[in-house]
């Protein structure tokens, strides 16, 4: 854990302490369980986004993909009566395909990530609404999938299984990002794609892989979101989720230029965002101010981080000068 992550963790704890003092209900098991469930759902989404951002790209279609794949998943198991394990696999594959197409358009046809995924955002939302004829996808009365429900919306020892899923995924993805050859390539490409290419790295394939990972994780979280809400109106389900994911990554120290950020950072970013959501609810702040609070905190966080960096650089310089002057030989 680097200093940036540590700072973020301290911020999370301080905000938590303040909220807990003002409203002790913050620490009730039911509140913590609900919040950690949301952290799990958004965390999986944000890790996917982080893999794309590290390459210097961006994935704006995440929210629409959550809506489309969530709708399809519920439709598959509730209406078309596909077995849920098969439906699960289908959705994950679909997510991978979407990611692959995005990556392919970006690397092979040299389209800008922003443009490709913005179009995705519009297309998938439209397809989802068309698919249900703007209706709501949901389960019929009495339809039950006990195993699936346990795995997605259930709890083990009071801990939401979605949160446990996040922890498992985070550990795996931490190894991938920070220890594997692939992870090193991702950072290299994010820092300087040209130089990476000149070092013999097949940058196109690596970038496509990043979008596929994002697609798969988004598909997974789409299933979790679907089982959490249990009914989906495709017009609004998952709206702005891409921004939650991007915000979590930025809070976690990712640079949108690529090449910077840590997995721990993006998880902590997600935690802070959900804590803020919770804070708005618990402190009786009008929920219409929800986004304003989040935006304000992110802005302050980024500002403090940057100013801190400037301050540290200056202090280092001054110290070195002092040392130099003291150590300079007398003439």
């Amino acid at each position, binding site marked *: 854990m680097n200093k940036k992550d540590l700072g973020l963790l301290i911020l999370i704890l301080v905000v938590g302490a303040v909220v807990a003092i003002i409203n002790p209900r913050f620490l009730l098991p039911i509140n913590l369980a609900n919040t950690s469930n949301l952290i799990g759902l958004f965390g999986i989404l944000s890790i996917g986004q982080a893999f794309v951002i590290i390459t210097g790209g961006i994935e704006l279609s995440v929210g629409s993909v959550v809506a489309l794949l969530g709708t399809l998943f519920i439709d598959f198991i509730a209406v078309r009566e596909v077995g849920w394990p098969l439906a699960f696999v289908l959705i994950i594959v679909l997510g991978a395909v979407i990611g692959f197409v995005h990556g392919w358009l970006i690397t092979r046809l040299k389209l800008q990530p922003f443009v490709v995924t913005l179009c995705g955002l519009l297309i998938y939302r439209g397809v989802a609404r068309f698919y249900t004829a703007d209706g709501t996808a949901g389960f019929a009365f009495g339809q039950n999938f006990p195993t699936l429900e346990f795995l997605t919306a259930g709890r083990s020892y009071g801990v939401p299984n979605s949160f446990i899923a996040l922890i498992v995924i985070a550990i795996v993805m931490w190894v991938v990002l920070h220890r*594997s050859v692939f992870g*090193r390539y991702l950072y290299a490409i994010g820092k*300087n794609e040209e130089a990476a290419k000149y*070092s013999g790295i097949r940058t196109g394939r690596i970038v496509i892989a990043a979008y596929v990972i994002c697609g798969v994780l988004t598909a997974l979280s789409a299933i979790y979101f679907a089982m959490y809400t249990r009914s989906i109106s495709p017009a609004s389900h998952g709206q702005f989720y891409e921004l939650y994911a991007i915000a979590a990554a930025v809070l976690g120290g990712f640079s949108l230029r690529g090449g910077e950020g840590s997995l721990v950072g993006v998880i902590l970013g997600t935690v802070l965002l959900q804590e803020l959501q919770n804070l708005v609810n618990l402190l009786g702040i009008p929920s219409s101010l929800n986004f304003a609070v989040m935006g304000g905190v992110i802005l302050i966080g980024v500002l403090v981080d940057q100013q801190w960096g400037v301050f540290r650089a200056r202090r280092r310089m001054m*110290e070195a*000068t002092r040392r130099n002057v003291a150590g300079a030989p007398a003439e």
Partner: protein
Amino acid sequence: MAHRLLPSAVNHGVMTSTDTTQPTTAPFLGLEAVRKTYPGVVALDRFSMEVRPGEVIGLVGENGAGKSTLMKILGGVTRPDSGTITVDGVAHDGLTVEQSIGSGVAFVHQELNLFENLDVAANIFFGREPLRAGPLKLVDRARLREMVAPLLKRVGANFSADAPVASLSLAQQQMVEIAKALSIKARLVILDEPTSSLPLAETEKLLDVIKGLKAQGISVIFISHRLHEIERVADRVVVLRDGTLAGTLAKDQINHDEMVRLMIGRMLKAREKAGEATRAPGSVALSADAIRTSTYPDRPVSLEVRRGEILGLAGLVGSGRTELARVLFGIDERLGGNVALDGKPLNVGSAADAVANGIFLVPEDRKLTGILLDLSIAQNISLPNLPAHARRSLVSTGAELATAEKQKKNLGIKAPSVLTRTGTLSGGNQQKVVLAKWLAMNPKVMILDEPTRGIDIGAKAEIYGLMRALADAGVAVLMISSDMEEVIGVSDRIAVMHEGQISGILDKDDFSQENVLLLAVGKKPKLLQAAGGVQ
């Protein structure tokens, strides 16, 4: 030492002309006992010099000798810790940027400061555009063109004021920079390694421009690692070493060996040559047959590089050398022709293919494509061969560091540790890191594009030595270079390109500056025997 005592630089506010050697022109700018320290280093110490009108001063010194600091002080970007700067007899503790510009100091930096998306005229008068009357204050294009025309003429430009800068060659862009300097009525133009990226013919042109400036009474400080250019234009040479004045050479004392001796404090043998080949070249390693690049799609290029030889590839900038290298390395698409490695046809579709086959490129632009400035030395070295430094696709830091330590020692990379960010290294050491990553992988063919551009003499000699060692180990070395001294001094054979085609190949007996130049402009060379190598 003597000129430090000149009163002109010491007396505050007193105009003097007590200089005995050149009584007609008093210095208008003087530095006296200037000292500047940065955290951990004394960048400049007890440094004094003066600039007289119409004087061309050659400023030489290895990288890190203090040239950049001196430039920053003259440009008003940095204040010295102590010492005086005298401008027109007025003493200052340090200049501000405004004072520097006001005194007529103009810079042409090694890395050009141009807006590539704007045209020549807009660049020259950026922020100072003539405006039309009226509330909208629109740019007066006609007037602008009128103002630019004489400036372009003065630098001998062969392009129009409307040309987008992006469409100009590096040499032409440099002329734009000089025109820009002239436009602010500069009295002193400081050229920071202007020729390091210029080809031969363009270099000549630039030297002419310098002479032209001199004739107009404008002083020039000419910083270059190419000493023969300094020899040709400088009236005086100031040599910096380790932040102090190593010596000043008057016009009649200027010669190559003396400059080198002052710069490095010792004599370099054999004019920084790489040394002779110790073995006869072997079989053909890389053969390019009728390769066509996207820059010259109708000009096929054929070339053979043998094991154990250094083939120099000379030519003017824009003659298609870099493009050929990029195609051979798989970066650019090959529009036609065949490549063979050790006699077997090879399809290089990407840099990854080239690397997998032992064909490596040390690219022209070190900072953009050669290394990743944000990564450590070790991470840069292992990058092309990462799977070999990994177990079950997880990076083994131990293996990575071991490789890096070995290369650091072999190449003499000067850095606190292999974990140092490459961005903090000097140019020469950065280039060694680029070389190190390939040397760690057993190259078969090594292509080097301007391998010593912007690198100091000490590191240059080391890089020449490395190239020779590679060749002696049986590697085929293809070296693209615009530095005449380098091409002739290092190569075993020289291929010269002219407008996308090989205009001739010279064997060692026919090496001469004249022959290379003749071929570079598409003329016939003067050969000792009627060789078959030239078409």
